[in-house]
C-alpha cells in the first residue's frame, strides 16, 4: 500500500492512467482485424506522438508548430537508413529516428529558444514551412519531389513487420514509448518547467537555468516528433514531402488543445477523438479542418481545459455521471 501511494504521488494519477491506457492498447492489434479500423488506430497512434510533442513544449508555455519538420527529419532518417544502407533492425531505426531530430534540435534550440513567446511561435511555423522546401531542394539526399519509396520491411527480433496489423502493433509500442518518455521528462523536470511557465524571469532571478531546461524539453519534443515521423513513414511505406506539410502542424496543436493541455491525458484523448472524427468526415478533407477550427474556438472560449478539463470538472457532481453516461 505504501509503495502504491508513493508511486502514485511520484508519477501522478493522470500519468499512470495514460501509461495504463497505452499498455492495454498494445492488445488492440490482436482483437482488431478490420482493415479500416487498423488504419484508423495506426493514425491515432501517430497523432498521439505528434500531440505529445506539442504537449511537452506547452509545459513551458511555448506553442510549437514545427512538429512536422521534426517528423520529417525522423521519418527521412529511417527511410534513408533502410533504403540506402540496408538498416532494417527496428531498434536501430527507432534510436536513429529519435536521436537525429534530438541532435538537430540542440543547435536549433540555442537559436530559436532565445525568442520569447510569439517570436518563438512564428519561428517554429517558419521552420515547418521551410522543411518541405528543403526536401524538394535536396533531391540527392531525400529524393526531392519523388520522395523515397519502396521501404523494406522493418525487422524486429528476426521477424519482418510487414502486414498492417504488425505495423499497428509497432506504432502502438512507439506511442507507449513516447508516452513513457513524456511522463519521465515532465515528472523529473516538473518544478523547473512549472517555474518557466509561471514566471520565467522570476525563476531565472532565483537561479534557475531556464535555457537548459528549455533545451531539454525542446530536444525531447523533437525526438518524439521524430518517432511519429518514423511511424508515419512505415505506415505509408514511403517518405514524401507531402506527408509533412506545414498545415499538418495545426492538427497536432488541435489534438492537444481540444483534448486538454493541462494533463497528459489531453493529447491522448484529443488525438483519438479528432483523428476518428476526421476519418468520419474523410469524404471531404476540408470539412474536418473546419471541424477542428470550430472545436478550437469552442475549447478556447468555453472550455480552457479541453475535453479532459471538462470531464474533470464534471466528475465530482452527482448529476455529471448521468450526463456522461447518456
Amino acid at each position, binding site marked *: 500500500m505504501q509503495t502504491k501511494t508513493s508511486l502514485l504521488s511520484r508519477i501522478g494519477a493522470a500519468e499512470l492512467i495514460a501509461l495504463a491506457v497505452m499498455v492495454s492498447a498494445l492488445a488492440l492489434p490482436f482483437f482488431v482485424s478490420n482493415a479500416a479500423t487498423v488504419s484508423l488506430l495506426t493514425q491515432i497512434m501517430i497523432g498521439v506522438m505528434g500531440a505529445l510533442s506539442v504537449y511537452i513544449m506547452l509545459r513551458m*508555455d511555448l*506553442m510549437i508548430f514545427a512538429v512536422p519538420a521534426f517528423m520529417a527529419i525522423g521519418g527521412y532518417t529511417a527511410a534513408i537508413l533502410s533504403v540506402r544502407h540496408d538498416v532494417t533492425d527496428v531498434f536501430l531505426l527507432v534510436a536513429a529516428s529519435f536521436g537525429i531530430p534530438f541532435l538537430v534540435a540542440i543547435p536549433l534550440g540555442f*537559436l530559436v529558444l532565445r*525568442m520569447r513567446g510569439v517570436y518563438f511561435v*512564428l519561428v517554429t511555423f517558419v521552420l515547418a*514551412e521551410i522543411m518541405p522546401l528543403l526536401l524538394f531542394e535536396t533531391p540527392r539526399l531525400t529524393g526531392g519531389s519523388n520522395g523515397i519509396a519502396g521501404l523494406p520491411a522493418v525487422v524486429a527480433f528476426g521477424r519482418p513487420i510487414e502486414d498492417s496489423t504488425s505495423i499497428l502493433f509497432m506504432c502502438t509500442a512507439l506511442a507507449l514509448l513516447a508516452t513513457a518518455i513524456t511522463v519521465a521528462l515532465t515528472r523529473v523536470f516538473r518544478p523547473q518547467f512549472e517555474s518557466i511557465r509561471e514566471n520565467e524571469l522570476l525563476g531565472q532571478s532565483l537561479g534557475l537555468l531556464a535555457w537548459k531546461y528549455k533545451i531539454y524539453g525542446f530536444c525531447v519534443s523533437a525526438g518524439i516528433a521524430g518517432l511519429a515521423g518514423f511511424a508515419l513513414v512505415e505506415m505509408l511505406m514511403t517518405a514524401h514531402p507531402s506527408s509533412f506539410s506545414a498545415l499538418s502542424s*495545426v492538427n497536432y496543436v488541435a489534438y492537444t488543445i481540444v483534448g486538454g493541455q493541462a494533463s497528459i491525458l489531453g493529447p491522448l484523448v484529443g488525438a483519438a477523438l479528432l483523428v476518428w472524427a476526421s476519418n468520419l468526415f474523410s469524404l471531404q478533407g476540408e470539412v474536418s*479542418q473546419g471541424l477542428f477550427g470550430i472545436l478550437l*474556438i469552442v475549447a478556447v472560449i468555453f472550455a480552457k481545459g479541453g475535453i479532459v478539463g471538462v470531464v474533470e470538472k464534471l466528475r465530482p457532481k452527482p448529476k455529471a455521471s448521468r450526463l456522461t453516461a447518456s
Partner: protein
Amino acid sequence: MVEIVSAGLIGLSLGAQYALLALGFTLIFGIIGVVNFAHGGFYLLGGYVAYACVSMAGLPYPVAVLAAALATAALGYLFELLLLERVIDDHLSTLILTLGFSLVITTGIVLVFGPDAPLFQFPVQGVVRFLGIIVPLANIIVFAICFAAIGVAYALIYRTNFGRSLRALSEDRAVAEALGIRARLMFPLAFALATGLAGMTGALVTPILSLTPHAGEPVLAASFLVVILGGLGSLGGATLAAFLVGMIEAYAAVYLGGSKGALMLFVLVLIVLLVRPTGLYGRTARGA
C-alpha cells in the same frame, strides 16, 4: 540590364503587397498584442468576395475591391468584439482562436465555392513597354494602389486622433485608458482596419497570382517572415522588411529558380535573428 530592372520592378510590386499585409498583421500585434493566424484567411476571403461580386453580381472591379475591404473589415470587427475580446489577455488563447477562425474561413470557402480555383482575372490586361522593359499593366496598377493604401494607413496612424489613440493604447494600455481612451471601442476598430487591409490586398492580388482555397497559407507565411524580419509591432520595420523580402523573392525567382528564394529568405531570417533576436526594428515581445 533589362532583366535586372524588370526583376526589380516585380520585387517592388511584391514588396508593396507584402507591406500592406504585414502592416495589418503588425498593427494587430502592436496594438492588441494578438498574433493573427487568420490574416491569410482574411486575405483569401477578400479575394473570394471580390470574385463573387464580379462574376456573380456583375459589379465593376473597383466596387468589388471596396466591397471586399468592407466585408473583411466588418467580419474582423465582429470577430474581435464577440470572440477575441473574451480572451484578449492570454496570448496563447488568442493565437489558437485566430488559428481556429482561419480554418473555419478556409472550410467555409471550400463549402461555398468548391475546392477548385475559379477563373478570376484582372480586368486590365496588356503590358507597358519602356526602354525595352516590359511590365504587366496590372502589376503597375496594383503597385500604385498598394502604395497609396500604405500612405493612407500611415496617415491614419500618425496624423489622426484615431491613430494617436491606437498608438497610445499600444504604448501603455493602463495609462491610455486612464486618460479616457476606450480600449473596448478601439480594439475592434483596429482589428477591422487590419483585416480590411488584408481583404483589400486579397481582392487586388489574387486575380494576378491565383485564387484557390489554399492561397492564404503562403501569404500568412510571408507575413510572418516580414514581421519577424522587421520586428513585431514596428510599422516602419514591417514596411522596410516587406520590400526586402519582395526584392529577394523576385531576384531569386529570376536567377536561382525553384524554391531557393524561399530558402534564402529563411537563411536571412535566421541570420537576422542570431544578431537581433527581436528583428530589425524590434522591441521586446509581449507575453512570456
